[in-house]
């Protein structure tokens, strides 16, 4: 199968964040960036599908400045065959603007499957994958926790709140990938060496107009400092009293 995977470069999610002096971005000083977690699951799913189904091609796409080339190389070191950078100085916050750039590039690419992460850690929007599918006019499954492809059709499972559904769909299609579907592989040394020689093409991103812009960023209000009310089962009556009279939740 010919599979496209759209990935994003995001900061390490375990980091402590500070707001930049512009007040409209995070301070990137000292942050480690890598392929977004959900995008790495999508790459893994693509690689496993092509390994299982025989000859195919996995192509990774990223919108962004030249720094995303490192992220694209990482995906190729995992096993993707080639990469395309859709170049722009900064990735807009507007998910539809990004979806337009991806759809313009993917249209006519002959892909059987286009994969995305469920959302990216930084913008946490969950917009680009589903919107790109709509712009391409192909069916889409959002936040899949399981994906199988057989005879030109896909079967996916997705969590609903408190339930789960199994859906079927024809190819070509787009699927956004949730956690728990596959454990992304670590690049092998051989993979890392091979990735250096794999083709990475750079094209200008044909972004749509940005109609959603960042006005400001703030850190969430700190919770009041925690309080230990006692030790062992002896503290339970005091806890009940506080839940009833202070927190009023019981």
């Amino acid at each position: 199968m010919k599979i496209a995977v759209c990935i994003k470069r995001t900061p390490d999610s375990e980091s402590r964040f500070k707001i930049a002096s512009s007040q409209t971005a995070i301070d990137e000083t000292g942050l480690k960036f890598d392929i977004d977690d959900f995008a790495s699951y999508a790459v893994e799913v693509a690689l496993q599908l092509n390994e299982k189904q025989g000859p195919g091609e996995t192509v990774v796409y990223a919108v962004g400045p030249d720094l995303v080339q490192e992220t694209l190389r990482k995906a190729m070191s995992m096993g993707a065959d080639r990469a395309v950078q859709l170049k722009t100085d900064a990735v807009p916050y507007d998910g539809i603007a990004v979806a337009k750039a991806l759809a313009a590039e993917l249209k006519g690419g002959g892909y059987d499957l286009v994969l995305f992460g469920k959302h990216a850690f930084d913008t946490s929007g969950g917009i680009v994958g589903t919107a790109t599918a709509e712009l391409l006019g192909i069916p889409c499954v959002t936040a899949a926790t399981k994906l199988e492809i057989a005879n030109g059709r896909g079967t996916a499972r997705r969590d609903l709140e408190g339930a789960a559904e199994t859906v079927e769909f024809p190819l070509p299609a787009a699927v956004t990938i949730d956690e728990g579907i596959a454990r992304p592989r670590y690049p092998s040394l051989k993979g890392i060496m091979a990735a250096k020689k794999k083709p990475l093409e750079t094209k200008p991103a044909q972004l749509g107009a940005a109609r959603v812009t960042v006005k400001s960023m703030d850190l969430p209000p700190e919770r009041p400092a925690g309080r230990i009310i006692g030790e062992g089962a002896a503290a339970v009556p005091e806890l009940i009293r506080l839940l009833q009279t202070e927190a009023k939740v019981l």
Partner: protein
Amino acid sequence: MANVLVFAETRGTALRKTALEAVTAARAFVDAIGGGEVHALVAGPSGVGATASQLGEHGADVVLVAENAGLEKFDRESITSTIAARATAVSYRAIFLGFSAQGRDVGPRVAAKLDLPIVTDVTEVQAAGDAIVVKHPAYANKVIVTLQVSGPSAVIAIRPSAVTATPSAKTAKVETIALAAEPSASRVVVKDVVEGGKGKIDLGEAPVIVSGGRGLKAPENFKLVEDLAAAFGNAAVGATRAVTDDGWRPHSDQIGQTGRQVSPQLYVAVGISGAIQHLAGMRSSKTIVAINKDKEAPIFKVADYGIVGDVMEVVPALTAAVKEAKAHH
């Protein structure tokens, strides 16, 4: 004066809590921009129209009802087409919906189809002159982003539980509409829906969540967490990533950065150390209780009420005390 459309999501013929939250948010927005009508679109199998009164009571002026036998199960494609067709025929200042599993699926499609800007997982909406300004927690809740949305219309997907559904005593006018596309023509077909368990309350809707971590030592000890949740009566059971990765609990129970992000009235953390990954999913809970044997555990930094102790001893005592408190209430 401008009108707003709301997609009021249902499961079967019952409204979801997010539908009432979206209607409440839409009502407040319309009132803030100088008045106008809230139109709630509800689509489901025969009988779904009975939800109209509830939607009216939460601020809908008009309820657009599409009943179709093909909507026993959620059909993303015909619903997307129907919302888009309505918003093309009638101009709306905004289209509101919940950012739930359904909203995640429908919202971006509607935006792409109509070429509208979209903001998702929104916790606050304000009108600011010609623009709409929203707050949106990003970076796994570690940064609050204020976004400005320009243009004559936009799709706004509200984070579940961020808005409290509030009655505003309207009697909605009911209009019957037809779906813009037949569900039978949809390419993505729901084959099967497995309910999570009878009477199980979803993590996103539960006012109380009792969550367990590695401190429980073994999967069978999750019984303690389940018993405590049962004692509260209105509680859902959650888990840490360590526990779901080890297969003690299903992935869908995971609370944290990569799992569900919740903000219940009360969150009880049992045997949870409080890794950043977990805190990102629950730190916006109103009241946090933590029970852990290690008094240095980071969870105690965010817990309103912490008890240092063995979960095997403290949790059964708490379960008994909650039962008693409930009985006398």
